[in-house]
């Protein structure tokens, strides 16, 4: 069956999500994850664990984080096996 949303006779609790509709949630952050890409082993654990999907790991350049939406939960720093991510208080 193909994706369909039938012309609505009634309300259905379904939305089409898109990036940033709720505003830039990075402003909620109290601590910022800072990455040492020289220490990073490219294990991808931080990318996998990030609950808001803002971390990308590239084999050449290492970890990059979208700070517009990172809420600073610190999971990435916690799972990093080599301590390459540090949580630093926001000013």
């Amino acid at each position: 069956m193909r994706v369909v949303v039938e012309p609505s006779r009634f309300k259905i609790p379904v939305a089409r999500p898109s990036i940033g509709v709720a505003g830039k949630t990075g402003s909620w952050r109290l601590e910022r994850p800072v990455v040492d890409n020289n220490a990073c082993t490219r294990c991808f654990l931080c990318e996998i664990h990030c609950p808001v999907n803002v971390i990308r790991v590239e084999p050449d350049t290492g970890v990059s984080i979208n700070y517009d939406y990172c809420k600073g939960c610190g999971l990435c720093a916690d799972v990093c096996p080599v301590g390459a991510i540090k949580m630093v208080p926001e000013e």
Partner: protein
Amino acid sequence: MGLKLVLTGNYSLAYAAKMARVNVVAAYPITPQTSVVEKLAELIEGGELDAVMIRVESEHSALAACFGAALAGARVFTATSSQGLLYMHEMVHWASRARIPIVMGIVTRTLGSPWNIWPDHTDYMDQRDTGWVMSFAVDNQEAFDLTLQAFKISEDPRVYLPVMVGIEGFILGHTTMPVEIPDQSVVDEWLGSRRQPYVIDGSDHLALGNLASPEDTEEFFMDIQNAMEEAKKVIAEVDREYSKIAGRPSMGLVECFKCEDAKYLAVSMGAWSGDLKEAILQLRDEGFDVGLARIRYYRPFPVEQLYERARGAKGVVVFDRAISFGSAGPIFLDTLASIARYSRKTPYVKNVVAGLGGVNITSEDFSKIIRKFVEEVESDDLVPFEWYHRRGG
């Protein structure tokens, strides 16, 4: 036409799901439901049904798995009872409010404590306000018919609500009777392919269950109430179409047994209505002008039909196999509200609660209760609520 098989009530549910060609079954065993999904597992394993059986760790997960599969476009079925149904309850609400067609069998069983595996209607009635269409069978043939029809009703764009079909555990669940099963090709043509209001299968970005404003949320619920009204028409329509396939009369939301011009009307639901019919035949022989309106669909409640049946009666006696503690039986409350909705001049309406915890109620019991009821009405000395209880037999 078709096949005639000797089936238990539980197998009748399983065969109806098979004839609807369900794609996914997810279930967790619980007495007295277990043999419903055991039979489906057997049919899948034997290659008679092309479906996936998802074994889960709880009833909450069983309905969650069915819900997920249904969202993705699968026709699904599950069944449960009693404590399992209560454990599943959060997902029961979730599914109807998402407007996703699902069919579930409820093989009723008393709620604990104390621990009890015999049937009454308290687990089923606990689902009263969930937004599911709710039917209840009187025998194994009707268990099959209502379950097969449930798929068509659930997937009708005017309804798009999940449907649960109730049968009493053991009384129907584990006893056998001949059940007529229509030809697969006839069922396929009549039922058609799966329909649902939206599909979430990963090929597009759709999010379900977002935060909604109070006003939007209330409008979702108003739409469910409207769909329930529509469902009354759809149920009658589907039942009429199906009766042509099945070659049995169409009854719609309520079965009328000797009720057309009955001076005294009994109202009931479920397997014990069979004993009640025997009592009515006996009482008619004795000269009592008595009939029965049997509830086949509890939600949407057949308000108009019951009003029509009850308006000319002198007295109405409503039998409930469940109770809202501190109030009365749920069918009584709905019946009284149905009659009072259109008229301030209501007949005598009495509630008899009985058969809870699986206490056996026979046709003699029904005869005794109705004779007493008629006497009460005739002497203008009604006992409006009675919990009929006895030991033995």
